[in-house]
Structure formats: structure tokens, C-alpha cells
């Protein structure tokens, strides 16, 4: 009786921890719905097992404790076949339940439904680039998705010039889907967003010094807003240089390593571009030349305190012009 009461108290306490602590982040995809189901079923089974173990330990510790000078021995019980079969069979049943449920959810989460939106993901140290082949191959530093439509990500770890990078891992906690991005392979991931909003894209595989800052955003829009966004992006490709430079700055991931207020960038891996000024430039070059050369040949100049790890970017001359204009003008405003 006492044993059962202890077990119930433990079960109540652990259930309270499971219930009142804010465990899972907001649910924003169909795949997360399946994950959450497996999560809570497994948590329930864990609470059941833990309550048994904890209550038997606590009860035995109190009930069977003896004084240090008690030299007697316990009853010589060597085992009990029935009980041993029971505690082999019950856990086997419980893990079978978890395995079957998990396998079903896994199969569902790999499946796409209806009209699938394809997004190509390119990961490199330390930036994400998302492109939309069916939408005129527009590129974006943020992942824009329409709500309620299956999206399949095709992910590669490579630089713009197709040279391989290291392993990264794509995760949006609210989507509950994670997949490593592996050099030499194309990995895929299915996401069906269920909620409009803005979520974090996090790189989950240690990928070098800027790993902690390799972040982006997943922005889920309504179908109409998504269509509008696509339209705007296709026009922006030929927009004014300042606007184009700003887009290039984020779409190439400059923002993940450099700070530049005008682009809303707060990266700390590389030098702060807000603090660019003419005096600090060696060899009497103009700011414009200095920035251009630094983009085209990242190891041309080394700032003290920073290691040479900026990759080369495969940009057209027009794109470099737009980027240089944007960076120099933004820096001069500070």
C-alpha cells in the first residue's frame, strides 16, 4: 500500500514536470504534429517506468534499512522465473509500441502531398541560401514558405563555385524536422507548415568558428503573400543598386559574419563593417578599392584579431559593383 502511494506521488510529480514545464516549442508543421505524438506517448511510458523504479528504491531504502551494527542477512532469494519473464516481456511490449508508432510517423513525415514546392538549399560556412527553381530561380537568405503546402528541401553543402564545404545541419525547432547537409550528397527534407509566422533556422552540426552564428529565418506566409513575395523578388533582381546590394549582402550570407547596421546584420566572426573608415586602410587606397579587393580576394588584407576564413564568392562584376556601393555608402553613413 505504501509502495503504491509512493509510486503515485512520483508519477504525479513527474507528470507535473512534464505538464507545467514549457517543453516543446510552438508547433508549426504537420511533421511536428507526428513528432509531438511520439514524444508524449514515450514520455508517458517513461513516467510509468520511472515511477516503478523510483518507488521501489525509495520504499526499499526506508523499509529495509537496518542499523549499522545489525549483522543479520536477508532471505536467500536467488530469483523468480515468473517475475523475470514478466520484466522481460513488459518492457519488450512497451518498446514495440514506441517502435511501431515511430515507424508510422517517420514514414508519414517523409511523404509529400499534393503540389510540392521545391526549394534548393545551399549551406556553406556560415550562411544559408535558399533558391526557388520553379519561381524563376530567385534566391533568398531567408526561407519563405507558403502555409499548408508541402515543401521539399534539396540540400547541398557547397560554395557558389560548387566546391564542397563541411557538414551543416538544417533545423527549425517549430517544424520538428532536421537534416544534415553533407558535402557530396543531396539530402532532402519535407516540411508542411501549418502556421503563419517567423521561425529560426539553426545550423545544428558544428561547422567551424562561426557555427553559433549560422542562423537564418523561416518565414511562413499565406499563399497570396507568398505569391506577392515571389513577384517582388523577380522584379528586385533589376532594381536600384542600393536595393540590389542589400539583397546580395544577405543572400550571400555576409550578414552571418559581419555587422552592418544598414543591412540589419550583427555577425561577429569577421570585422565590423560599420567601423570601416578611410584612415585604417593600408597603402592609401580608397575605401571603394579596399572593399572591392577584400570581396574578390578575401585573404588580400588581414585585420588583426581575425583569421583568414572568408570564402570567395562567385559574383558577376555588376553584383560586386552593387555590393561595394551598398557597403561603402552604408559605412559612410555611420
Amino acid at each position, binding site marked *: 500500500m505504501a509502495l503504491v502511494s509512493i509510486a503515485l506521488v512520483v508519477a504525479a510529480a513527474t507528470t507535473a514536470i512534464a505538464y507545467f514545464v514549457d517543453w516543446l516549442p510552438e508547433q508549426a508543421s504537420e511533421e511536428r504534429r507526428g513528432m509531438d505524438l511520439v514524444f508524449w506517448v514515450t514520455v508517458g511510458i517513461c513516467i510509468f517506468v*520511472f515511477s516503478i523504479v523510483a518507488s521501489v528504491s525509495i520504499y526499499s531504502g526506508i523499509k529495509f534499512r537496518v542499523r549499522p551494527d545489525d549483522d543479520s542477512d536477508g532471505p536467500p532469494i536467488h530469483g523468480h522465473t515468473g517475475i*523475470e519473464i514478466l520484466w522481460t516481456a513488459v518492457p519488450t511490449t512497451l518498446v514495440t509500441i514506441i*517502435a511501431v508508432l515511430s515507424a508510422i510517423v517517420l514514414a508519414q513525415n517523409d511523404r509529400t502531398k499534393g503540389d510540392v514546392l521545391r526549394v534548393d538549399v545551399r549551406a556553406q560556412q556560415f550562411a544559408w541560401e535558399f533558391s526557388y527553381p520553379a519561381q524563376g530561380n530567385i534566391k533568398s537568405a531567408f526561407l519563405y514558405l507558403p502555409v499548408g503546402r508541402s515543401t521539399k528541401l534539396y540540400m547541398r553543402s557547397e560554395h557558389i563555385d560548387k566546391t564542397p564545404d563541411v557538414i551543416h545541419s538544417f533545423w527549425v525547432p517549430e517544424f520538428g524536422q532536421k537534416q544534415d547537409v553533407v558535402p557530396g550528397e543531396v539530402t532532402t527534407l519535407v516540411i508542411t507548415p501549418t502556421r503563419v509566422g517567423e521561425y529560426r533556422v539553426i545550423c545544428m552540426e558544428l561547422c567551424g568558428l562561426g557555427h553559433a552564428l549560422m542562423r537564418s529565418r523561416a518565414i511562413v506566409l499565406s499563399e497570396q503573400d507568398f505569391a506577392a513575395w515571389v513577384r517582388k523578388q523577380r522584379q528586385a533582381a533589376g532594381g536600384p543598386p542600393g536595393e540590389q546590394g542589400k539583397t546580395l549582402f544577405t543572400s550571400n550570407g555576409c550578414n552571418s559574419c559581419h555587422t552592418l547596421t544598414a543591412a540589419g546584420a550583427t555577425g561577429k566572426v569577421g570585422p565590423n563593417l560599420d567601423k570601416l573608415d578611410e584612415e585604417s586602410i593600408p597603402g592609401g587606397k580608397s575605401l571603394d578599392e579596399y572593399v572591392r579587393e577584400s570581396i574578390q580576394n578575401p585573404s588580400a588584407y588581414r585585420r588583426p584579431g581575425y583569421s583568414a576564413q572568408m570564402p570567395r564568392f562567385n559574383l558577376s562584376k555588376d553584383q560586386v559593383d552593387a555590393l561595394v556601393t551598398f557597403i561603402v555608402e552604408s559605412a559612410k553613413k555611420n
Partner: protein
Amino acid sequence: MSTTETTQAQVHVEHGAAPPPRHWALRGGLARAVWMTPLFFLIGMGIVVGLRALAGWHPYLDWEVVIVVGGLTVAPIGFLAGVGTFDYWTRYALGFPTRPEDHSSHGAYSWKDYFRVNTDHKVIGIQYVTTTIFFFLAGGLMAMLVRAELARPETDFYDTQTYNQLFSVHASLMIFLFVIPAFAGLANFVVPLMLGAPDMAFPRLNALSYWLLPIAGTMMLVSFFFPGFGAGWTNYAPLSVAQPFGNVFFSMAVQWAGASSIMTALNFLVTIITMRAPGMTFWRMPLLVWANFTTSLLVVIATPFIAGSQFFVMFDKVMHTNFFNVTEHGYVLGYQHIFWFYSHPAVYIMMLPGFGIASEVISTFSRKPIFGYRLMALSLMAILVLGFSVWAHHMFVSGMAPYLRVPMMVTTLLIAVPTGIKVFSWLATLWEGRIHFGAPMLWALGFVSMFVIGGLSGIMLGAVPIDIHVSDTYFIVAHIHYVLLGGSLFTIFAGIYYWFPKMTGRMYNEPLAKLHFWLTLVAFNATFFPMHIIGVQGMPRRVATYEDRFGDWNLFISISSFVLGASFMIFVYNMIVSWRSGPPAPANPWRGMTIEWLVSSPPPVFNFDAVPQVVGNPYEYGVPGARHAILNGDRAAVTELEPVR
């Protein structure tokens, strides 16, 4: 003195002439190592420079190659030769007279004997345990430095490379230089005694395996001064290949530590199979022996795989091979498959000896036979077999072939069944026992409860959809610390406190040991339980900066971790003071039945005057008149036997 004793003693009379005394700098020992290590480094350097000059490769003096060949490969051999691990074999190979029954390097008569090559399994056991505790404190200090950085969300103290090296070296030291060899050390001391054997099967090999450890540990510590081991202890390619040069220190340290593990495991296997006392059938072996038998099988089968994986990384780095270079048809996921084919069984290498210790302690302190002895032994074998079929559960999100996920999930979840059997059997052993809460028992019960939490979070991770959500988050960090700290470390402490009287001949301070336990238990849970929460919520591991919303939890975790670190100072103080001046220990302070308790504390140099006769099962508490073994004919309970010094 009975006749058997005399015969036994005669065996150990030294044969042959003693070699002429040599100058102290030429005798095997640390003094000779001091000059032989640099000498061998120069030899290695000469080989590199010579070969490069012959081949006409510029520069002739390439320091990176010199460090790999001279510093990390040849100089350690010089160190081993210097301390004298090869002396006997060298003399034998060169045709000099050898003395097969030379026991001059057996036993420890002063503290200096712990700093030379010793072939006594009891001395080696103590050498192992003290060395591993040194590296445990070093690794723990790094954990404190990591937590200091993580106390606040922004970067506070170190540059990112230093931070990455801190957590990488922390994990490597704890795994390769603490948990694995600490268990090997305890088993080294205890297993031959439990078997009724005078020593391990290969005492000189045993000494060699110990002396490989300081080499491996030094390499991992020194890697700080050669930046590059900052890719996590998993050292995933291609990031590890792209790391600065110092990454080779990890690659080579793993080779030395791995060689040590393999040699020890072979030694245990041969000892357990061939050196059991008369009457010691497999079904009469204590569960600690069973545990080390299965662990040793895991070690000899699995360890070559991590050696291979790290060689591949080093070859890609130094020799510009293309194992993991995609542009030259390398296969990135191949690294992970090979790595985890070792590193998952390694989890059981770090767990099964602890299961053995827990079985010994729980049975003795509950004064009851272990419940379901045979199923306990069989479940160890089941874990051994299943343990080789689950490695890819570390790779559910890695991009490996998707069809591998479900079978790997099934085997992973099934391994919970034999593990569950062990937990339930320990609980059933407690049931109706006469429980004494000595310090070893507290640690053993602490282990059971903490390990259950780690095991249950392991089941969650086994379910693929949950794993996809939480892999590489702090949930993983919480899980492995519940398993390796709440599991392995707690049993290591249980074992150290349990056999401390046997090892040193002195009792430790019981109140301090209990204070150590309670402080560690509370601080441990305060440190690691909240990591489950922030992990599920989305905090990635291996980062120095994180989102502000995790700031409060992390500050709490960091403060708790400092308390956790401080709790080990109590342990160190207790061990040092008790070893120097604790009260003398009786032969059998816990009223245990296994053979090590039948000899004095500390045991005689050759363990037994006469070969023990095993007559029953090892845990016959409460069975009237039952005995596990008889020593010296009819003088069975000669607990007051004098050491043969």
C-alpha cells in the same frame, strides 16, 4: 605453516643471477625516459629530414611531419623504452640472459614504486586509478571553463577556437583517459583477486598498457598549444581535416589510448578464461568478472574501428589522401559509420564494468544474493551482441540511407530490455534485504536512479522522430551526462570507496564520503536536468553564444556545475588524507563473500599463499554455512591472515 604454503612460496624464489647494477641514468625508469624520449624524437626527425632530402622534397625540415613522426610516434616509443616497459623483451630478443621468474618489479614498498614499471596487477591498478583521476580533474576543469563561458549568452572569455578545443578536449579526456581506463584500473586490481589468480596472465603487457596512458593524456593536453582539435570529440570529417594542424594530436592520442585498451582487454580475456581458481566455473564468477569479460570482448572487437577512423583523418590531413575529400570521390558519411561502429559499443565499454561494480556493492550491502544471477550475466552478453547492431542511431539525421533508420531504431529500443532486466534485478535484490547505507551503497543506488533517467532519455532518443527533433541539442548533452556521469562516474566512485580499504589497507572518512555523494547528487541533477528542457526548446550544443531566452537556465546550470566541480575536491581531500593516515582497514570491512575479501588489506604481494578452492556461488548471503571459496585448506575464514611481506 602448511605444506601447500611452502610449495607455493618456493615458486617465487628468484632464479638465475641478478644482473649487475647499472648507473641510475641507464636503469629503466623515469630518469632514463627523460633522455630517451628526446633522443627518439631526434631519431624520428632524422628519418623525416633524411627521407625528404633523399627524395629532394622541399623544405627538408617540415615541422608538421616532424611532429607527427618524431613527436607523436617515435618519441612515445622512446618514453616507453626509457621507463623500461620493453627491457625484458629486448633482452630476450637480443639473446641476453633473462629471468622468467623475476619478481623484482612486483609489489610496491614505497611511494616511489608507483612511478616505475611495475608488473604487480595491484600496483598497476592503483597507478591506473590515480592517473585517471588526474585526467578526470583536468577534464573537469575544462568543463568549468566551458560553463564559465556559457553563463551568459554572449561571448565572454575565449575566442571560438579555444572554446571549441575546451569542450573537445574535455570529452576526449573524460572518455579515453578517465572512464574507460578507470574501469580498467579497478578491474586490474580486483579481477585477479576475485578469480583467485596470483596476477594477470601477462604482467609485463599489463605494465605496458598502463604506461601508454600518460602518453595519450599528455598528447590531448598538449593539443592546446597546437590549436586544431576543435571539432568536438567526434572529430567529424571533413571539418576535422580542415582544422588547423593540432588536430593530429587527437588522432594520435586515440591510437595510444586505444592500444592500451586493446592490450588490457586481451589480458583480461586470457586471465578470465585461463586463470580461474579450481572450482571457479563461469557460472560461479562474480558479476564484476562477467562484466569485464563482456567489456573486454567489446574492446577488442570495436576499438580498431576508431583507430582506423582517426588514421583516415590524419592521413587526409598530413599525407593528403582523399578518404573524406568529396572532390576526389571521398565518402564523408563513411567516417561516421566507422566512428560510431566503435563509439556506440564504447558506450557499453563505459557502462558494463559499472554494472558489475553495482552488482557487487548492492548485493553485499543488501546482505542478499543478487536476484537472477544467470539472467544478469546473460543480459550482459545480450547487450554485447545487440551493442554492435545499433551504431547508426547516432546518424538518424546524417543523410545516411533512410531505410537503415527503422532497423537501427528497433535494435536500439530492444537493448533497453536487457538493460531493464539489470535494473529490475538490482531493485529485487534490495527487496527484503538488510540494507546498509555505506558510501559505496549510496553511490551504487545513486547510479541506479540516475542511470534510469539516462536510460529513459535514451529510449526517447531511440525513437527516430524524437531523435530528429533533439539531436545535436542540449537534450543530447543531458542524456550522455546522465549515462556517463550519473552512470559510469557514480559506479567508479562506488568501486573506489568499496575497494579503497582493500587497495590501501586504510579506511576512508565515511562522513566526508557521504557528504561528497549528496553534494554531487544534488549538484549533478541541478546541472544536467535543465539541459533536457533547453535542449527540447531548441538550444544547440557546441556553441559559445546562444539566444538570450536561454540565459537564465544557463546561468543556473553554470552555478550548479561549479558546485558539482567543488564536490570532487571533498573526494580528493578524503582520498589523500585517508591514504596517508586513515585507520587501518580490516581484511573484510563489508563482510563480502568474493575472494578478494578473504585476503588481508592490502593483499600479499602474490595475493594467495595457496591456490584458493572455489566451492559455491559468490553471493550466498543468508544461506547458512555457505561459502564462495576456501583459502588454505580448512582455514576458510582466515581474515586475519598476515601479509607476506
